[in-house]
């Protein structure tokens, strides 16, 4: 099967970020998305640590160690930015003000349940961060992830087996193999990565994938 690279996946997802949107990019790979949003669209990025208007990585010599995003990457400030404290930042997340959040995931279930903060491995201390606040507050939750785990086991499931981040919160899943909507009937195919068939993708997916309407 054909598989998008992480950068290709970010570029595909970026096409679905509309002009004028307020977007939160989760830590790690979701932060790649902003580089691929078409330049004629003005999008403002919120980061949980107290900024709307995250700009690109600073040029060398221009770094400010106290200007970071939620991934702790050094950032600059985009035109139209604002700073605020943490209670206000999470009021913005919880209160429904952000349009889209892009998150990574361990597992997504066909009812939209999301598991992205803890596995069943108890060796490491648990760490939750801001994901639980995002999923209850942001109306559109896009998940960006590999379609299957490294061992080939499925990540798109009938029910999540890992501890949940939120219940019935995911709207759309972008994987290296396909794009799928979460609907009241379950996962529904939006598009396939070039060269893949629905049967191929279904074969590595535990949950049933409905064909496009």
């Amino acid at each position, binding site marked *: 099967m054909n598989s998008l690279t992480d950068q290709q996946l970010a570029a595909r997802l970026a096409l679905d970020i509309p002009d004028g949107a307020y977007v939160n990019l989760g830590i790690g790979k979701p932060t790649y998305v902003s580089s691929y949003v078409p330049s004629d669209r003005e999008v403002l990025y919120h*980061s*949980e*640590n*107290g*900024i709307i208007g995250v700009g690109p990585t600073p040029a060398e010599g221009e770094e*400010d*160690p*106290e*200007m*970071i*995003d939620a991934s*702790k990457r050094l*950032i600059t*400030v985009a035109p139209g930015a604002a*700073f*605020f*404290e*943490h*209670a206000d*930042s*999470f009021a913005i*997340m*919880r209160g429904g003000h952000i349009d889209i959040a892009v998150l990574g995931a361990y597992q997504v279930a066909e009812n939209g349940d999301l598991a992205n903060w*803890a596995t069943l491995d108890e*060796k*490491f*201390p*648990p*760490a*939750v*961060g*801001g*994901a*639980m*606040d995002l999923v*209850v*507050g942001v109306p559109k939750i896009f998940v960006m992830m590999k379609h299957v785990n490294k061992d080939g086991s499925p990540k798109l499931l009938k029910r999540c087996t890992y*501890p*949940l*981040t*939120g*219940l019935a919160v995911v709207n759309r899943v972008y994987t290296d193999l396909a794009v799928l909507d979460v609907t009241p009937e379950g996962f529904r195919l939006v598009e396939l990565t070039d060269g893949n068939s629905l049967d191929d993708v279904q074969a590595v997916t535990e949950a049933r994938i409905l064909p496009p309407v």
Partner: protein
Amino acid sequence: MDKRVATLAEAVRNIPDGASVMIGGFGNSGVPFGLVDALIDHGAKNLTIISNNAGAGDFGLGRLLKEGQVSKFVCSYPRSRGSVWFEKAYAAGEIALEIVPQGTLAERIRAAGAGLGGFLTPTGFGTRLAEGKETRVIDGKGYVFEAPLSADFALIRGEKGDRWGNLSYHGTARNFNPIMASAARHTIAEVRQLSEAPLDPESVVSPGIFVKSIVEYGVRP
């Protein structure tokens, strides 16, 4: 009214063993590194630390953990790259951990500062972090009841300050500092620059009423 103290050591000298201490910052941004170092030198033990992260490397909160001064951590994300001292203490069962979703942590701190008795948040409803907690469904949406979170002391970092304790901040170094300032019985602020003149009242983010002591520490991490 003059809340200035001359040294970091003097600012923290009344923190006793067993105290609960909020420490501002997110990652390395907005962490009062000068006050944390002073707290390590001061040597108070058996501390409950309330802070978003559990430090990284051998400095700041990492060093406080390495020195064995912390018996409990309340936090949203203790697993940043390099949080080795927390992970060691946790694995050895030497430290208690209360994990709180980040927005709930912020809101609980704010609620304490604002004199509220608690609040209902949708965050965490139906998850493991709501287990054992009071819940309620309103108009079909689930909520978890969360209690206020206060502390004996707060160590915070501002950009500019004045003798009244008024503070401004710098970029994303604001983060937890303003709410922690409001939620502790004794808030100690380190600022990059102590101003002789009062700050412009429009630019004050933390009114001095929240701050008991203020000390200059010019180093930017």
